[in-house]
């Protein structure tokens, strides 16, 4: 059963976060191990497996990027395991330049500006995904998702850099 089906949601790139929560909560109410404390071991085990699967589904579908990656995998677009390789030379160039800029940024404001730009780029790239799915343009999807994953990682790196700068200041 795929993650969408498990939560009773239509398989789609966009979904309403409130609907997802509602579906998840109602199923966890049914399957969470806390509901099975007094039940026989086999029922407990079954509930635990189901609750774990629900958590995995929810976790995957909640974040727009991980949902897009998962939705793409259902459509046959596979990405390399966790962004270890960037095989797109254009993206590689972009990544190197921005990383260098981050490395050189020596004020919190400068880091914030870079992170803000990355967030804007992510937003734009996310909203561009729908049309790629519509056209079923697999190479373009793969490229866009790899870039999104890189941007996501970059935002996290910027957060680390920001924290170190704040520390150094204090």
């Amino acid at each position, binding site marked *: 059963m795929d993650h969408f089906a498990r939560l009773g949601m239509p398989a789609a790139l966009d979904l309403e976060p409130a609907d997802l929560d509602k579906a998840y909560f109602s199923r*966890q109410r049914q399957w969470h191990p806390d509901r099975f404390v007094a039940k026989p071991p086999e029922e407990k085990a079954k509930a635990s497996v189901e609750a774990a699967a629900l958590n995995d589904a929810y976790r995957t579908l909640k974040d727009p990027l991980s949902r897009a990656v998962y939705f793409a995998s259902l459509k046959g677009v596979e990405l390399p395991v966790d962004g270890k390789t960037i095989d797109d030379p254009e993206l590689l160039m972009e990544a190197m330049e921005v990383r260098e800029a981050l490395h050189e940024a020596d004020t919190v404001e400068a880091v914030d500006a870079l992170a803000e730009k990355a967030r804007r780029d992510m937003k734009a790239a996310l909203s561009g995904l729908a049309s790629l799915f519509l056209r079923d343009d697999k190479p373009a999807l793969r490229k866009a998702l790899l870039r999104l994953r890189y941007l996501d990682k970059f935002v996290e*790196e910027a957060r680390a850099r920001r924290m170190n700068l704040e*520390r150094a200041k204090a």
Partner: protein
Amino acid sequence: MTLLEIHEPGETPLPHAGEGTLAVGIDLGTTNSVVAIAREGKPAALHDETGRALVPSVVAYPAAGGVRVGEEARLLMAKEPRNVVASVKRLMGRGAADLHAVAGVLPYEIEPGSGETDMVKLRIAGKPRSPVEISAEILKALRARAESALDKSVERAVITVPAYFDDAARTATRDAARVAGLEVLRLVNEPTAAALAYGLDKGSEGLYAVYDLGGGTFDFSLLRLEKGVFQVLATGGDTALGGDDFDRALAERMLAERKRDGIADQVDEGAVKAALALARQMKEQLSDREKTSGRLELAAVPSFHAITRAEFEAMIDALVKRTTEIARHVLADAGMAASEIHGVVLVGGSTRVPLVRRKVADMIGKPPLTDIDPDEVVALGAALQAEALTSGSDTLLLDVTPLSLGLETMGGLVEKVVPRNTPIPVQLAQEFTTYQDGQTAMAIHVVQGEREMVADCRSLARFELTGIPPMTAGAARIRVTFAVDADGLLTVSAQERTTGVAQRIEVKPSYGLSHDDMADMLYDSLEHAEEDMTQRLLTEARVEAQRSLLALDTALAKDGALLSAEERGAMDEARHRLETATAGEDRDEINAAAEALEALSKPFAERRMDRGIREALSGLSMNDLERRVGE
């Protein structure tokens, strides 16, 4: 008997319905413990004859025999120090390597030879005793208090643990309950329990935070409350930050003042203890007053010390700031802004300090919730959860993993399998492969922590998957599955997918890291993220380089004859360059050397492939060929 205090007028004092289903909530604290019971959604702490809810977490094995717990044990501390244990919670699930961290804090004799591969044991009153059995004594006392207050047998409990308790400490807590004759219905994280105590009463919805500042630890958690569902979004903390630090700052100031006034103190353990006790008193007074003073007498030399609240606040400002800094990181982890928080629940005696309340209020822009006693709130929440689990309830508690869980991969890198803040129970798997041709076993090393390198994380368990059939490097598909149950306990299993060879382990944590280290690990992770990234890239380049060297050597051994002496010379030179680069620290040099070798060996690889195809085709009929292609 204090039954009247815990019942609404007109309620049946002893409900006979649900006979034998009575379950209590227990806050097993470092300094104090509390037991509470909830009935029909109304929790109450159980008091002793004198009306006290707090049971000091102190156990004494007096020379006269027997066991004393709580206030009675504490009174024996001065008289029989070697027979009394306090703060045993700090040792739950700890090994020998942790002891330096608590040495000086806990003046105990350690049982020689313990703690190497097992939990450390203390030598108390001439006998070895484990933290599990000492904690069990506290639990037995709490159970007895509950049974006498409720006039009923109590066999089940929800026990709270700090969000940062690792696998070893959680297991030890469960074991202690078993020794005390209590079935643990669920281990619940302390901040979660506190939120339960508030949320249920008020039917609140939205984003809530729990700010828990105890004597020696700090925790900050974010929860979302919605229609009876408690969803923990993120949690974080520091196990070496608490109200004791406030006392220490004040005590140091007083000792410095004495020195300034020309008193030559022998600053020994006794002097420090006296100064700390006075500091604590003055700190508590400053919660209600603008200024206070105290008299410190050491070696019969008295001194007088006055302090204003403003002075005190200036002293502890940096400590309090550290807590709000941690809170901000937890918010960032959850992708939330402080302004989105509907309310902050305060837990722990140290949250009575006005500066703490003010800073928390500043951070979220509204006053924190303080209407439940911060010392009892955790036990009250645990009691509510105990009732929910036994009598059924509409409330649901969705908790998360506080630290990431992963595996060691080539070069000492960590591959995270379960990221922190993943909702539990959870089962997640990842595939790995073999590194060498013909490799038949794979070492599985399970670690906990946020850093990129294994050396910076906590080692939880090691086991070996054996019986992998010999295959070319990278052909085996080894699926490693991490399952974390609703109590936060981990089981890891590994399976080779092409053959089904399987191995499974209940993680028995190796002891060797303190809770302090655990907290550091989390907060280190961000501070070190930059250097970790560099280290990771370098290690990956090295691993990649070694992989190609290995493949090249295999190929040369088999088909070296396909190369001219000249080609072979060039290849050896390029090979040597890569080998040298790999030993160095320059990632660019490694990559350049690897590329050069790759370019040089391309024609060789093509020749090998041609030869391979020729060999494969020779002597085959057309039918054989078709069959082979179809395979």
